[in-house]
């Protein structure tokens, strides 16, 4: 038994163990719980990086639970795999890296941000469970297993949104709304899984992908899966839970929630590309996703401009940025069956969309953390009551400028690189889409100028004379994110060539995903 073979299981096993240990540890010493959680997620991050190196150099990996050998998928004599397997290709590990990074930084930030008084052990327990469920959604190769992790993710994130619910009513209201919509979506996913099972008798995604025919029932399953997963990702007009939940959750949780909704986005791409691929009517489904993207971009950003609550404003921007990802990947899907257009601009558009997922996780995480830092020192999220904070919170101001420039797509930050890929490729598909995307980018800049002006600029207000810089662990977390943003902005080609391009290719070439399980390598 070599440890290296069991890394896919260890990625989720270590945080899961820590999740159930933390209430026990919390009984003994409250201060150690946070360090335990950060340590467990740090181990997960290291394991994910090792696995990523392995996958990108060797090829997709399979981990089979309960088999004699962890890579043995087909028990002899059977035509399809029956065990629960983890099936990790470049796209899965790309999302896994985002999840690992974001949840680790969220745990480190929480060390200072969450007060130690009550429920700290439960907070970290739920945070670890949320991280585990996100990993599970991204790494699993079994569609029912995906549903289970989806439910765990929504329960853990709802409980975390309601973390301040004993004191105020609004977090509970946001949590209730999120729980109701996410249980609708999870139950509809289960319904679609039932349709697949009834039709093909398989639950494994690779086996399903090899037999799928796009019959009438498959169309129904697709028509159910696309809107509910888009809803979990926060696409307009099913986005209304997003500003509520993002604005009321504690700041590090909001950062992780962004990654959680991106896990749903990943599931949407996985369903459309790996499960159906070219069997479906690519033009119609592609345009459905493009329209979701356009609506999300435009309505998200215009609603953001008029907000007064800093986190609610950023939440609307999260919707708007999700639109870019949907737009890029939707264009890639629309030309998937077209052998001339796909290499010409389809792949570039998808690279832009997928690269934007990682960039968005970084800069939106940074922005939510700066909003959390402002809340930590001033005790308010209302922009009207803030002002002149640049005098006393210098590091936070610098980090905010970096995050705002990145989200608005100013060179040389990372948002520009992925947006450039989207603009230039989408322009060749349909110029109008590209123009709308640029207008949205300008409006994004405008609304962040508003936040910057009203929170940081201006004279020092008398009620904020006592405000100091936030504690070191919070500054450190934001500094790490800022460095990553600048690095990704200066060397985008490294990321695109080594991480994003393999991910896109494993989405487009269905065989890369299915072949490894079905033994046709």
């Amino acid at each position, binding site marked *: 038994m070599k440890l290296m073979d069991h890394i896919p299981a260890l990625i989720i096993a270590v945080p899961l163990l820590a999740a159930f240990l933390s209430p026990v540890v919390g009984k003994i010493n409250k201060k150690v719980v946070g360090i335990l959680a950060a340590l467990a997620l740090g181990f997960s991050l290291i394991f994910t990086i090792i696995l990523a190196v392995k996958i990108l150099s060797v090829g997709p990996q399979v981990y089979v639970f309960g088999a004699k050998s962890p890579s043995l998928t087909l028990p002899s004599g059977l035509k399809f795999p029956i065990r629960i397997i983890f099936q990790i290709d470049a796209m899965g590990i790309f999302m896994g890296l985002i999840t690992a990074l974001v949840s680790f930084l969220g745990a480190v930030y929480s060390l200072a941000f969450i007060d130690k008084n009550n429920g700290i052990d439960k907070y970290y327990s739920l945070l670890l469970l949320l991280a585990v469920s996100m990993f599970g959604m991204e790494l699993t190769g079994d569609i029912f297993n995906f549903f289970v992790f989806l*439910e765990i993710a929504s329960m853990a994130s709802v409980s975390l949104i309601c973390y301040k*619910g004993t004191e105020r009513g609004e977090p509970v209201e946001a949590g209730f709304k999120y729980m109701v919509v996410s*249980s609708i979506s999870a139950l509809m996913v289960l319904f679609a*899984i*039932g349709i697949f*099972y009834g039709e093909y008798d398989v639950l494994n995604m690779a086996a399903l992908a090899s037999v799928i025919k796009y019959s009438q029932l498959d169309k129904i399953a697709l028509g159910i899966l696309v809107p509910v997963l888009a809803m979990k990702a926060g696409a307009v007009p099913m986005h209304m839970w997003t500003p509520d939940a993002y*604005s*009321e959750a504690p700041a590090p949780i909001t950062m992780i929630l962004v990654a959680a909704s991106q896990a749903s986005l990943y599931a949407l791409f996985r369903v459309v590309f790996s499960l159906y691929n070219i069997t479906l009517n690519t033009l119609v489904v592609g345009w459905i996703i493009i329209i979701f993207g356009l609506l999300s971009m435009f309505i998200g950003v215009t609603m953001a401009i008029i907000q007064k609550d800093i986190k609610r404003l950023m939440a609307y921007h999260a919707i708007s940025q999700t639109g870019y990802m949907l737009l890029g990947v939707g264009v890639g899907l629309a030309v998937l069956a077209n052998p001339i257009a796909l290499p010409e601009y389809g792949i570039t558009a998808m690279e832009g969309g997928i690269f934007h997922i990682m960039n968005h996780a970084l800069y939106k995480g940074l922005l939510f953390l700066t909003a959390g830092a402002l809340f930590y020192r001033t005790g308010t999220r209302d922009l009207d009551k803030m002002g002149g904070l640049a005098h006393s919170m210098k590091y936070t101001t610098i980090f905010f400028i970096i995050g705002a420039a990145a989200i608005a797509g100013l060179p040389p930050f990372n948002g520009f690189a992925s947006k450039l890929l989207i603009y230039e490729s989408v322009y060749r598909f349909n110029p109008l889409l590209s123009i709308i995307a640029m207008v949205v980018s300008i409006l994004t800049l405008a609304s962040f100028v508003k936040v910057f002006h009203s929170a940081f600029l201006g004279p020092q207000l008398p009620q904020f004379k006592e405000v100091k810089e936030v504690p070191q662990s919070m500054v450190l977390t934001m500094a790490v994110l800022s460095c990553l943003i600048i690095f990704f902005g200066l060397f985008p080609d490294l990321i695109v060539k080594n991480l994003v391009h393999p991910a896109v290719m494993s989405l487009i070439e269905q065989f890369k995903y299915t072949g490894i399980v079905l033994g046709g390598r």
Partner: protein
Amino acid sequence: MIGNFPYVTVAVSIGCGLYILMFQKNLIKLAIGINLIESGINLFLITLGYRKGGVAPIYTQAPAGKAMVLPTPQALTLTSIVIGVATSALVLSMAMMIYKHYGTIEVDKARRLRG
């Protein structure tokens, strides 16, 4: 003979659940609606596994010459029942917290977050 009748029941209970979620105002009623959708989907999964003339998949040695009902959907349903009760408990506890803070469990009164 029963044919598609279970599927009709599935459609009716999912439809009733969605109707409750869309049009009824009481928070606890919404939890009942989620429960109803879940019942419908459980019935759907079990019906998928049903084979006419099959026996229950709980014997270690099946009687000769008889088919078994598919066991996988039953395992899925068990998981989904347990998840469903967890969801109901969470939703209802949050409804009680909303009642504690807002003094109401009406959907259109408990909406401080908007715009």
